[in-house]
């Protein structure tokens, strides 16, 4: 969690909150948090999307609540208070979905309980919501959640495509029949089983992380070159 505890410089600048959440401080690719649900559920794009959306909902609400009580809670007991708060929240979401969204719950039910062990939620409470206003915290929760959703969907899609030759299989169970057009199947491809099994998750995450580092290094080098090129002109 050490990375998440770092002071976030974005403050209440919404543009940079969103950029941090989606890319710069992406929960999976930069903070390397929440790897347990990431590895466990990304066997298909649909699963990744479902887990991501459920987590986003919990993250937004938990950020709002933590921000609301941030002046009441003394710093010595904040962690147990937040843990109680998040665990309660997840349990409530679990029960409410089971009762009134039962079909969706049958698809997502397995993941909801996993959100409790998602340290990214406590991480955002600690790193952001406890220091910032309610609206900014809600935006931060949304941006971080969407960044997480994007990462999970991407890993899920890659594993699903290589492992079983489909894309967004059973998406209509999650999103409703109007999204059936998302479902694609590669005819005549048996799939590389390894990608569906846990090692596939590690391999895909590793390649994606390496890819993000390469992109960041290139951007850095370009920035250096630009300033390096500009400097002689000034001098």
């Amino acid at each position: 969690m050490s990375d998440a505890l770092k002071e976030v410089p974005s403050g209440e600048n919404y543009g940079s909150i969103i950029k941090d959440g989606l890319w710069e401080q992406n929960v999976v690719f930069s903070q390397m948090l929440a790897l347990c649900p990431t590895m466990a559920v990304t066997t298909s794009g649909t699963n990744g999307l479902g887990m991501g959306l459920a987590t986003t909902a919990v993250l937004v609400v938990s950020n709002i609540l933590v921000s609301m009580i941030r002046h009441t809670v003394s710093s010595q007991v904040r962690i147990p208070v937040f843990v109680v708060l998040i665990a309660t929240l997840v349990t409530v979401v679990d029960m409410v979905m089971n009762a009134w969204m039962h079909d969706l719950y049958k698809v997502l039910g397995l993941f909801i309980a996993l959100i409790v062990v998602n340290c990214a939620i406590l991480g955002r409470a600690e790193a952001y919501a406890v220091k910032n206003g309610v609206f900014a915290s809600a935006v931060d929760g949304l941006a971080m959640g969407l960044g997480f959703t994007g990462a999970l969907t991407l890993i899920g899609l890659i594993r699903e495509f290589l492992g079983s030759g489909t894309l967004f299989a059973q998406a209509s169970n999650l999103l409703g029949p109007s999204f059936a057009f998302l479902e694609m199947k590669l005819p005549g491809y048996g799939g590389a089983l390894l990608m569906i099994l846990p090692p596939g998750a590690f391999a895909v995450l590793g390649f994606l992380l390496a890819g993000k580092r390469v992109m960041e290094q290139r951007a850095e080098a370009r920035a250096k070159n630009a300033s390096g090129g500009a400097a002689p002109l000034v001098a």
Partner: protein
Amino acid sequence: MGFASIREKLGYQPVLLGVFALLASGALAWVSESTAGAIAAAEAKDLRDSLAEVLPQGFADNDFLHDTVDLENKGKTVTIYRARQGGVVKGAIFKVAERGYAADIVILMAVDADGKMLGARVLKHAETPGLGDKIELSKAPWIKDFDGKSLGNPAPEKWAVKKDGGVFDQFAGATITPRAVVKAVKGGLDFYAAHRKEILGDKS
């Protein structure tokens, strides 16, 4: 003395923690209370749907969800749902479980009064995706091979996967899983044969 200094007092912290624990348990109790009915109804509907799936359509005219008898099978209590037509028991639905490759495979099976298989579905399993999960109807029609089979058809020694000299297909790369399913279904048929009188006779 402002709020900021009260907040740092030692006495404030346990009280705060206590208040939050109380609020959390209160909220949980309230939500649990208000969702309990809807959850029970949804789960009953799930059970009804899965029971109806192993029975041929129009097979039963009773509410078999509430026409049950509990029997012992290998030390565990099995609930048997009885499908009736005009008050006569025509079939029984019950769960059987057998250790698969990773964990127990739970199968729901329906047999008619003479002990002939009406259908079987895998309810729960943790088999390897892509290999062992072909026992699910959504992945492969394999599980339908059991329809119409009984203890005498095929002969008892043929109740096995082809690799073991039986009549049931195994999957490429996965023999343990179908072997477990065949064993479970055969066990279910044996169980039915042993308790047939209790299942059919008792009119409660």
